[in-house]
């Protein structure tokens, strides 16, 4: 776990604002207070390309650009390709997991989840990327 969680800047991507708030609250519980939001992949990509983000938590199913496309775009962008990317979805179908994994997701979490579950996933990602 990073020494100062508030230093890590998150981007929470979801078209449902209630869900963004839920994720934001859960992150806050874990001490991650530096959070920005985007309502779909297009907005998220613009924000990410603006720089400064350390971690993306994104929904899968969104209008305009879905989470998977966002992930693929992020991974193909030389400046963003190493960004930790946690995929959130209500689906837990195996083809979804595989698609997310193949696109390079750092982790995958199924709704609904608790702060503890989220933490578990994030610790693993942090270990891997050495944050």
């Amino acid at each position, binding site marked *: 776990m990073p020494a100062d969680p508030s230093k890590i800047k998150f981007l929470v991507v979801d*078209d*449902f*604002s*209630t*869900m963004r*708030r*839920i994720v934001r*609250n859960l992150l806050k*519980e874990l001490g991650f207070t530096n959070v920005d939001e985007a309502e779909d992949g297009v907005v998220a990509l613009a924000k990410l390309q603006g720089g400064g983000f350390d971690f993306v938590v994104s*929904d899968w*199913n969104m*209008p305009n650009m879905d989470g998977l496309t966002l992930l693929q775009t992020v991974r193909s962008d030389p400046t963003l390709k190493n960004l930790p990317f946690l995929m959130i979805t*209500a*689906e*837990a*179908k*195996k*083809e979804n*997991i*595989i698609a*997310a*994994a*193949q696109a390079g*997701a*750092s*982790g*995958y*979490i*199924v*709704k*609904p*989840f*608790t*702060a*503890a*579950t989220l933490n*578990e*996933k994030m610790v*693993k*990602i942090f270990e*891997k990327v050495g944050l």
Partner: protein
Amino acid sequence: MSDFQGMEDLLQDFLVEATDLLSDVDNKLVDLEKSPGDKGLLNDIFRGFHTIKGGAGFLNATELVTLCHLTENLFDRLRNGEIAITADVMDSIMDATGTVRDMFGSLEQGMQPGPASPQLLDNLRAAIAGQVSAAPPAVAAAPAPAAVAPAPATAGGPDWDALHGAVASEAMTITAAPTTPEVMHTDVEGKSPEQIIQQAIGRRATDKPGAPSSGGRREVEKGGGGASRSGGGDNSIRVDTTRLDQVLNLSGEIGLTKNRLNSLRSDILNGRNDSDTLHALDQAVSQLDLLVSDLQNAVMKTRMQPIGRLFQKYPRIARDLARNLGKDVELVLVGEETEIDKTMIEDLSDPIIHLIRNAVDHGIEPTADRIAAGKSPKSEVRLEARQEGDHILLLISDDGRGMNPEKLRAKAVEKGLITDEEANVMDERQSYNLVFLPGFSTKDAITDVSGRGVGMDVVKTNIQKLNGSIETKSALGKGTTFIISLPLTLAILPVLLVQLDQQPFAVPLSMVREILPIDVAEVQEVGGRATMVVRGEVMPIYPLNYMLGWASERTPGYGVLMQTAEHTFILAIDGFMGREDAVIKSLEDFRPKGVAGVTTLSNGQIVLILDIKELLSALGDGRGVPRSIFQAAIGAAA
């Protein structure tokens, strides 16, 4: 959910957002009936249910999750072209959205919704299974829960365990990869592939919605939440952040200007009154003036919402009603982006529902009659909003049979609402407005409004409460239009300042049609009341001083032609000062008859805002002013 903070707020947010989403789904369903193959629509509806399901999961609303999940799966199949939309399927879907809405209702009460009717769930499963039966026997033979989650397209494809291994080796953060036997075992027990994957990716049992530990917790939260919310209702509002930023910006600017004024004040108190200082003061005050009015506008804007939010739910209502009545009606929405004060949106909901029902039920003739009259069997009801000046106009029109003024008058006389004499002098417009009389449209109350107790008279009363007015236009055989005119906001009332002696009074500008000079010689007596002829129309004159019970020796110099829903009359006054946007302050505990509130003029003077309708009813509603009393006011100068 155990470590979840602010559950009530979350619930509120969820309901606001999910209700919008559901209305949108409802509208798309109406569109879908017209073009059943539209992939875009199917996708959008799928996503709607999917999103609601996701949010409901966090609220532990298990039954809502189940229902949304089934419906979502149905749409998944529909959008993949695996099954076709039949009338039965459509009915189940409509039933499902209705039930979702009911469940929102329970949530609003702070209660977990109960399960959907088994019949609905069975219907949905059957609809989904329409495809399943064509799938490999292993899947088709699985018990109901297996049918809940659509069988993955790759059911007979790659080996599950191998895939799982592949996933895990792709460096996913999967905590526990179950062994093959486990998977096989659970599958046999009828668990869906989804549940298996959830286990596979390490969701703990306690996370599951409805698990005993979190379920118990929910009960406690429910009690607290329900109590704290009970008084609140839906008091939240969604505001575009750019609008809030503007408010913030302006408050900051005002703060700066205040600082400037503070420093100028101390300068002046210290004796500096050279022209530079005074000029700076003048500038600062002008700037403050500008900023404050900008701030007022900006704050007002935060209350403005597109009326489309309100319109959204009507196509479904119109569709359902038309279907029940065996009519083919399309509700056309125009001007959904028109913005209107949020409180008004809520209060308009029922009146518009009534007008739409009225149009579909009574306005639109039965299909056979339409064909006989040479009209298209498909009828159109239009709901239109637009801004005109400082008013919002709402038009509800149909292309139905129209109203017959003669029949309306006859019916009103028959019901004893008006006398024969009154009926004889009524013009068309007045006749159409008879439908707003209490007791006129009794048929409505029985047939179409299903126990709501809303008649056209209530529609009118509700519109008037919003300082609005409603009018009717109709052409026999062509259709009827109801026109609702509303002020932009309730907080600010444009008024006309009139004078009696030197005392100003404010009257709502919405009632004012024109101002005309009164020539005492032109005042005539008709039917025992003082009247004046304006462009061939005979109008009663009510002197304001008489209405207020003031003695006055002066001759009224002007008349304000005023129009309420029932009456058109001339308010006789001494003079007028012009129009002003009054910020209404209500008189808390003390409310003299005929006074709607007070407002403060720029010079600090307090002005009463008159409640014209109340003053009129005190006079005996349109019966007019006895000539003798009127004479005292005008006659003195004559």
